[in-house]
């Protein structure tokens, strides 16, 4: 044990649950602070009124009935992907392959529209599209899961690489099916026959929204009230415990990833069948990665994910309006969104942890409750020791 002269200036301690009211307040402070920083940056860099920027964001996301529908539709797609990733995350299986699973699902749906669009009646075609999209998405999720379950490969790398494989496969088929020749794009599929286009419920945005609501409720129930959901969390806590409890963790991993990939495939199906009616390598548009953030921000709670994905979509759809209203480049919108998201993620840290400062010289150190997470290096030992004495050795 090293000797040391003083304890560090501060160390970080995990909190017990913070009361809900206080959590809301921390988040509100974070948003206000973010807006203040955004305002300062806006004034310094553009000499424009920050209020014009903020009102553009609101206008961009909710400025007209159509914009509201689009915001809710985009939220729904992001939500579905986030929900799809969540069971995998709860299992501590880091599925960052949402992008590829969505894309390959979309490719499956588009392939059916192109190849058999004029050969089978529409309801049959849509059913085949659905099966193809969900099936391919599930396959794309199952492959890394099988590798993990059987050979214990690193799922993060594996799912990430599967994204690039999916992108290249889509690129190949884009060139194969391009119209006109050499143009590198497929364009709207069956534009004149509308074969394989999903039915419009009320308007063209509502179907996606309804499906997202169904999946949210379904996922909430699945994770919270079913045996599968319980198994997922046990495997996530500890594989050893799972084995002890008689859970075959390999099977749970594969099964969960089939669900995860399948749901991503469903998102791809909606993107192709209901929204874009085409397939491009950018169909998923990075949402497979954004969804990771949504899932984490919401602490894997399906209901909270509605708010998290709405927030992200609100910011990104809103930011697009900045360039139209204020004549500023898209990068400026990205900076503003980046700052706000940074503060929101940052405040989660203060909700989960607290900073304990060094007690004044001569004073008795304040009793610390909670769990030591990380401190200021070798000089921190007494602080950690203190906590260990109080809480027992339960570092994670």
């Amino acid at each position, binding site marked *: 044990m090293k000797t040391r002269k003083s304890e560090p200036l501060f160390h970080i301690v995990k909190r017990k649950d913070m009361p809900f009211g206080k959590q809301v*307040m921390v988040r509100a*402070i974070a948003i*206000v602070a973010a*807006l203040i920083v955004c305002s300062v940056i806006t004034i310094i860099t553009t000499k424009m*009124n920050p*209020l*014009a920027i*903020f*009102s*553009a964001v*609101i*206008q961009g996301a909710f400025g*007209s009935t*159509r*914009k509201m529908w*689009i915001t809710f539709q985009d939220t729904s797609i992001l939500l579905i992907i986030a929900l799809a990733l969540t069971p995998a995350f709860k299992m501590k299986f880091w599925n960052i392959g949402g992008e590829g699973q969505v894309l390959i699902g979309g490719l499956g749906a588009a392939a059916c529209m192109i190849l058999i669009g004029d050969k089978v009646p529409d309801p049959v075609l849509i059913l085949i599209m659905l099966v193809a999209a969900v099936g391919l998405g599930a396959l794309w999720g199952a492959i890394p899961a099988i590798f993990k379950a059987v050979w214990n490969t690193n799922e993060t790398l594996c799912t990430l690489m599967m994204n690039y494989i999916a992108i290249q496969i889509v*690129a190949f088929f884009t*060139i194969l*099916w391009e*119209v*006109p*020749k*050499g*143009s*590198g*794009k497929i*364009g*709207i599929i069956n*534009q004149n026959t509308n074969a394989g286009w999903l039915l419009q419920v009320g308007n063209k945005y509502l179907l996606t929204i309804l499906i997202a609501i169904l999946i949210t409720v379904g996922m909430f129930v699945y994770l919270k009230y079913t045996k599968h959901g319980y198994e997922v969390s046990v495997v996530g806590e500890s594989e050893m415990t799972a084995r002890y409890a008689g859970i075959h963790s390999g099977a749970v991993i594969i099964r969960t990833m089939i669900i995860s990939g399948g749901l991503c495939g469903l998102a791809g199906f909606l993107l192709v069948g209901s*929204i*874009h*009616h*085409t397939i*491009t390598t*950018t*169909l998923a*548009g990075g949402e497979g990665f954004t969804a990771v953030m949504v899932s984490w921000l919401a602490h894997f709670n399906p209901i909270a994910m509605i708010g998290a994905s709405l927030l992200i979509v609100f910011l990104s759809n809103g930011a*697009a309006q900045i*360039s*139209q*209203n204020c004549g500023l*480049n*898209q990068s400026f919108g990205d900076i503003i969104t980046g700052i706000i998201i940074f503060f929101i993620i940052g405040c989660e840290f203060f909700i989960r942890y607290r900073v304990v400062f060094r007690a004044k010289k001569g004073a008795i150190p304040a009793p610390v409750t909670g769990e030591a997470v990380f401190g200021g290096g070798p000089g921190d030992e007494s602080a950690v020791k203190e906590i260990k004495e109080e809480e027992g050795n339960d570092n994670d």
Partner: protein
Amino acid sequence: MKKFLSILLACTMVLSLCACNGGGKKTSETNFKAGFIFLHDENSTYDLNFINAAKQACEELGVECIMKTNIPEGQECQDAANDLADQGCGFIFADSFGHEDYMIEAAKENPDVQFCHATGTKAHTEGVANFHNAFASIYEGRYLAGVAAGMKLNEMIAEGKITEDQAKVGYIGAYTYAEVISGYTSFFLGVRSECPSATMEVTFTGSWYDETAEKEAATKLINGGCVLISQHADSMGAPTACENAGVPDVSYNGSTADACPNTFIVSSRIDWTPYFKMAIKNAMEGKEIPTDYVGTLATGSVKLTELGSAAAEGTQARIDEVKAELEAGTLHVFDTSKFTVEGQKLESYMADVDTDPNYEGDHEVIVDGYFNESGEGFRSAPYFDLNIDGITLLDQKY
């Protein structure tokens, strides 16, 4: 702490109240609004060319100009077009090839609004009355730029920098699409009209805008012995690579003289201002907009920039001569006596003018001894997709 919070809260409330008054509208002489959809923003030479023209046309006509940048070639385009219609635009334009299908959908949804689309191919077959295509005889501009490049090659040969056999031009194309093929072929024909020994190598990047890929492609061509470079892709990748390597460059969409002072020869571009003015004016007055509009040298739509320092002596005078011949109709870029395909003179060719998934040739386009590109009664977007002798395609994967 509580005090601090209450101050913060008060500030937010004041801010949110003020926010309602934000966004002052620009005044314009008429109530007419013109909406524009661009694939990228002003960092892309291609889009910048459209943005400048849109601003100028709207200013001259005194109409309000609403611009949406960075709109992808998907449902976002249709949403953007619908949103512009919601905002009261009577004229809506999109600049990228992949926007076309979504513009057609938006045109069907908003029959009272005029939709115009550059580089598209479907207006003449789709039968949507308020949807129109536009392009320009940019192959004439490319040909003139080729003349400048050919003269540069001649200068390099005369100075002993290269031999006649080494007069190899490199060209970076985006896709193996007719618009690109028409572009590099007309450029090459211009080069060869001045420097008969010239050959050309073409490589494709598979993207309309990919700075890294375009830079790498230019470097690859230069390393492969190309002594002059030109491109049909929208970033500064190729011009920058040329400036770094000291290889003369003919750029596209606008002058790159500022970034490449030592190597820039000339650039051809389409000036969209005449088209925008005509189309917006017609939309305002309720007059018909042509289904397929082709801007020409005569309409002021096809332009060359000022020559750069790398251009050979006497280039301007020669360009003016050739331009006069093109305008008079005594010279045709795709004159079938000036090129061969697989060693044969082209007597007849069925081009794929009407877009279909099987790429079927449907129109005879050899008229009076020349390939009638962007011709009357066909379509505005190019359909020249032949591989002529003297041009080697290094890859065709896109």
